[in-house]
């Protein structure tokens, strides 16, 4: 991400082309686990955590909340993916403008995607992603996780 600035109530983000390609590859990965969660995976348990330690309360909670949680996550995902389709092109850069509603989609999607990747790579330190050491990012998944952390932080700083 080269820049992020507020324009009125909207947010304009400038990317290089390769970043857009990386971002476009992500929603499919998340959709798979949201639509068919495999609860033997930490990532699925992290995306759909327990609402109560009491099994009876948990069951009742899931009856009223499960579909709403899944729907919200898919709305974020679809809203994020849609904004990537037609970026404004200028001198080799790609500009994406987010409305406040789309900004929410991005924050939610980036967080869920980080939960997925962070669970898969076993993020267990308590840095909360605020002290990323880019030199320590070794594999592709870890690099994408670090990049999404940076992007989400930039969005939060802009709002």
């Amino acid at each position, binding site marked *: 991400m080269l820049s992020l600035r507020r324009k009125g109530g909207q947010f304009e983000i400038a990317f290089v082309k390769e970043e857009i390609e990386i971002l476009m590859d992500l929603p499919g990965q998340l959709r798979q686990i949201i639509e068919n969660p495999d609860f033997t995976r930490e990532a699925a348990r*992290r995306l759909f955590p327990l609402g109560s330690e009491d099994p009876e309360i948990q069951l009742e909670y899931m009856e009223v909340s499960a579909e709403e*949680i899944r729907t919200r996550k898919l709305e974020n995902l679809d809203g994020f993916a849609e904004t990537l389709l037609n970026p404004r092109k200028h001198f080799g850069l790609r500009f994406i403008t987010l409305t406040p509603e789309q900004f929410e989609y991005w924050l939610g999607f980036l967080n869920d995607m980080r*939960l997925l990747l962070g669970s898969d790579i076993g993020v267990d330190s308590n840095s909360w992603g605020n002290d990323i050491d880019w030199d320590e990012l070794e594999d592709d998944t870890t690099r994408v996780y670090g990049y999404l952390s940076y992007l989400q932080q930039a969005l939060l700083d802009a709002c």
Partner: protein
Amino acid sequence: MTPHESTQVETAEKVEHDRLWNVIVWDDPINLMTYVVYVFQKIFGYSTQLATKLMKEVHESGKSLVATEEREQAELHVSQLHQYGLQATMERQEY
């Protein structure tokens, strides 16, 4: 069951029904601190100062009691916290 016993049962059920529920947010190694503050403000309408205080409590103590309310409202808030990707549970408030 005598009328007296019946009244006692109804009273006990009402007391149980009226008990408040705690909404607890748990520490998490993935969520950004600023994101947690953002979510607390969005869901509960807390000030930046209070939201930051609760976030720090989660971070330093492992969990924070972020609301105490009737069951239906607690369920709604836990669901919203889950929609945002935070780890949250609800439990009956102790007497």
